[in-house]
């Protein structure tokens, strides 16, 4: 008689690795693998649905049949580690970049990365943004040492392709906009967030994007400023705060606040 843990491992072998031998010994006579298939199908369709919800533009780009086969392969390689399925699929963009059948669609993985940032922004916790006035009392020395914690909805993405345009055109079914995109126009630097007006994907200048990225990683203001030459850091910071992109600050440069989820 298997222990509960043994039985659960055997069930996993049957449902994930399709090795029904060990669990078969525990099942009542007359029960075939058809019944195991019901559980297997529920798991697969549930996880595929979670991926569909997170990556709708990827699905439209490749078609639902292709998407399902990619999802099958992804789920086998990266089953979820937690029951919070709104956050299942963070490895899907990387998986797609290595998925041979998708190799001909060069921007697919980058569109997936953007969609993952969008998905994270949509489900991120609500937090109260930091006000510029809260920084007013800092001395000049403290202002150099200040570091920030980004709003949990803020994510950054970059691509060699205009993935923001692709994403919008695909989701709105606008073939004309899709055809008008110049795929060779050069890289785009994007900031994704859920603001007061809902989800936004904003194209930024490279220098500003790098500056905000450094702050999001928790780097002190001075080092973020120094790393980006020719930037009006004070104005740029004020703009970020006005957009509600940061929620807390700290002065201890040795213990920078936790960085947000990587986009």
């Amino acid at each position: 008689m298997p222990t509960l843990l043994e039985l659960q491992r055997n069930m996993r072998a049957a449902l994930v690795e399709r090795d029904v031998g060990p669990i078969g010994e525990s099942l009542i006579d007359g029960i075939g693998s058809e019944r195991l298939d019901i559980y297997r199908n529920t798991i697969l369709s549930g996880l595929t649905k979670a991926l569909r919800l997170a990556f709708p533009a990827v699905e439209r780009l490749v078609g639902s049949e292709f998407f399902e086969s990619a999802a099958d392969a992804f789920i086998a390689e990266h089953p979820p580690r937690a029951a919070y399925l709104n956050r299942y699929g963070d490895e899907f963009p990387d998986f797609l970049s290595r998925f041979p059948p998708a190799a001909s669609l060069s921007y697919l993985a980058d569109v997936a990365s953007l969609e993952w940032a969008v998905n994270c922004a949509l489900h991120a916790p609500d937090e109260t943004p930091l006000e510029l006035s809260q920084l007013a009392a800092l001395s000049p020395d403290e202002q150099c040492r200040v570091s920030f914690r980004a709003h949990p909805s803020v994510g950054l993405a970059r691509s060699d392709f205009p993935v923001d345009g692709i994403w919008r055109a695909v989701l709105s079914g606008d073939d004309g906009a899709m055809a008008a995109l110049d795929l060779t126009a050069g890289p785009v630097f994007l900031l994704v967030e859920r603001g007061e007006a809902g989800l936004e994907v904003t194209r930024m200048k490279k220098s500003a994007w790098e500056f905000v990225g450094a702050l999001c990683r928790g780097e002190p203001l001075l080092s973020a400023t120094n790393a980006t030459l020719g930037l009006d850091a004070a104005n740029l910071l004020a703009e970020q705060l006005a957009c509600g992109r940061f929620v807390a600050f700290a002065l201890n440069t040795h213990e920078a606040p936790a960085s947000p989820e990587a986009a």
Partner: protein
Amino acid sequence: MTSPVVSPTAVTQASLIPAKAGIGLRFQHHQSVIDIQPDVAWMEVHTENYMGGGTALRYLDAIRRDVPISLHGVGLSLGSAEGLDPAHLERIRQVAERIEPGLVSEHIAWSVVGGVHLADLLPLPMTEEALDVVCRHVDQVQLYLNRPILVENPSTYLTFRHSTIPEWEFMAAVAARTGCGILCDVNNIYVSTQNHDWDASAYLAGLPPPAIREIHLAGHAVRQLAGGRTLRIDDHASSVAPEVWALYQEALARFGPVPTLIEWDNNVPPLETLLKEAQHAQALIAAADNKGIAHADAA
């Protein structure tokens, strides 16, 4: 039935779930519910759909001002031999803190092994070991949330050779040992008793009436297996079957008026269809109540 360690003091009067019919609230109906303000006594949501933040939670924040809400979790995996995921339990606590639900429920099932979440409600062997594991986890959850929870009987397609406890006795034992309530899913009882040739009336008779704090009703599918056997599948994708309505009346006769939920999660119909199903349940609750049947305190 009261628990030795937890009391329902955290539940405010306003959020209590009445012994009436309610509906499962799904994303498709968020806006309609705000616009129409349907006449329904309470609603239930899947806890996992309201973790984190964003639009869904804002809708729920608004809806809960007018309608008592119950939280129904599908991912805690009370039956995992490896123990509960503390991060998931904390996420549930956060949703409960924000929504102040009238009831919090989970399933007698498991999903997690080896750190992998098999995204379904998988069947447990009905053994003393599994009973100990489930009771330990229910205790842990009730202490962590500082409130009693309900546990739902499963729908199953498999049974295990080494099971020694009838499922209804297993349910009753969990309630007796931990002080938790039972969410009696009448569709699940029908599905499982049909699939395993058990007696549905005996199942109902084996459940302790004072522990029954909620009832679920849902649709199921019928599938033909090789060898001419049929299997009923709990897919929540259609209206409640006539046989399940009949079993529900039997349950009401035994348990008295109990908060009753219409669950419909796949092929979700228009809100009006759900409300009609709920009205039918409400009529049956009222009829059972009018017969003056002695009933348990469902609060």
